[in-house]
């Protein structure tokens, strides 16, 4: 049976979380997914780069990103092929494959990389974060596209460990 929540239910959950000692809450039942975060940036599944804060609350605390059902092909849920290791986004933001427009990409498919290889940049609030590989091996797929908004934990590349 599909679970349904009214607006009052959601507000009640928000109140409970806000008053609790927990900073992060995620509820996923069937097609329903609710994510509440007091501090950490909220994983987004809709409206890239812009996340709706609750309209009713004058001060959005906690911020809420209540998204409809995650699609099966949602990036975070994508299956990792056997024998491959994902390099994931350490922070949410805009992913860039090269240090600046027109420059060669940091890595491409077939490149041998080490744990310290920079594989991309993620920009959030004008901060450019170099993403370190953290794994030694060969790049088999660049999953995230240049300029794509990525969530924390989303797969950026796949690597076959050496």
């Amino acid at each position, binding site marked *: 049976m599909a679970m349904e929540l009214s607006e009052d239910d959601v507000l009640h959950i928000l109140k409970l979380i806000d008053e609790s000692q927990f900073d992060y809450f995620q509820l996923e039942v069937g097609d329903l997914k609710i994510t509440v975060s*007091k*501090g*950490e*940036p*909220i994983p987004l599944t809709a409206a*890239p*780069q*812009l*996340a*709706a*804060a*609750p*309209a009713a609350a004058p001060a*959005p*605390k906690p*911020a809420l990103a209540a998204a409809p059902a995650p699609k099966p092909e949602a990036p975070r849920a994508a299956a990792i092929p056997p024998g491959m290791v994902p390099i*994931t986004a*350490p*922070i*949410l*933001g*805009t992913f860039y494959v090269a*240090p*600046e*427009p*027109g*420059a060669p990409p940091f890595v491409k498919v077939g490149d041998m990389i080490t744990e310290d290889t*920079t594989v991309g940049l993620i*920009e*959030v*609030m*004008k*901060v*450019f*974060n*170099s*993403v*370190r590989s*953290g794994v030694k091996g060969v790049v088999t797929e660049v999953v995230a596209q240049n*300029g794509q*908004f990525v969530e*924390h*934990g989303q797969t950026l590349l796949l690597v076959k460990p050496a």
Partner: protein
Amino acid sequence: MCANDREKRAAELGYAPLCLDIIQSELATKRLGTKFHYFQEIDSTNSYARRLADAGAPEGAVVIAEHQSDGRGRLGRSWESPPYCNLYFSLLLRPTLAPAHAPQITLMAAVALADTVAEFIVEPPAIKWPNDILLQGKKLAGILTESSCDAKRIEFVILGIGVNLNFPRERMPETIRDRATSLMEVAGNSFSRELVLRRLIQDLDRCYGTLEDFGFDAIAPRWQARFGLKGKTVRVEMGGDVLIGQAVGIDRDGALLVEDDRGERQRVVAGDVTAIED
């Protein structure tokens, strides 16, 4: 123009190289200014600081250059850096913040920059989310933050700062003349680069210490107090998306809050923000 020609021209204009002794002699800091790296010319202070970080240099190093041959802004945009009249420097930080909180470094630096500017000039500085300092609506200073992190921790942060100090309007390139300003342009007199830089490093040291010791909640109200776009109609551009609404402030993560025409608050974490004339 080669380096010698630049120095001659600077001398003719009355500009002189920075005197590090003045900066270091009375520098009162806890974390920053542990070591100074000074260059007449360099590709970019951020690039050098990054090389220092990769080589394992400790927190607090300051990289200063009189001229950057490859001064950078966002996405490879160039930063105009004529020698001897402005400040261009980068700081190497190794914060204990979680990677998701790295943007708080930029916001912290904006508060410190605004505090320093307010010490030297009556005209109130304003912060344009998240990383520019404006005087009379024109850009006075910019911050370019770069970091290296994995999923668990920030390895280092490079805080690059450029401040237009004694930059006369007639020497500004026409492309930025209507959008940029300098302390001298607003005040009508020149400033000691050493005294401004020393004060700025001290203010950054204090604000960074507050952020590290007490968290962003201790910095956010001061950022909000200097937020120049508060209540104004803004246009946010991110790739092909455009949002127009009223700037409200920032949330506890530093994301810009914009109220759209339906009264919904949107969190903005990327993109270019400009004020729209009402």
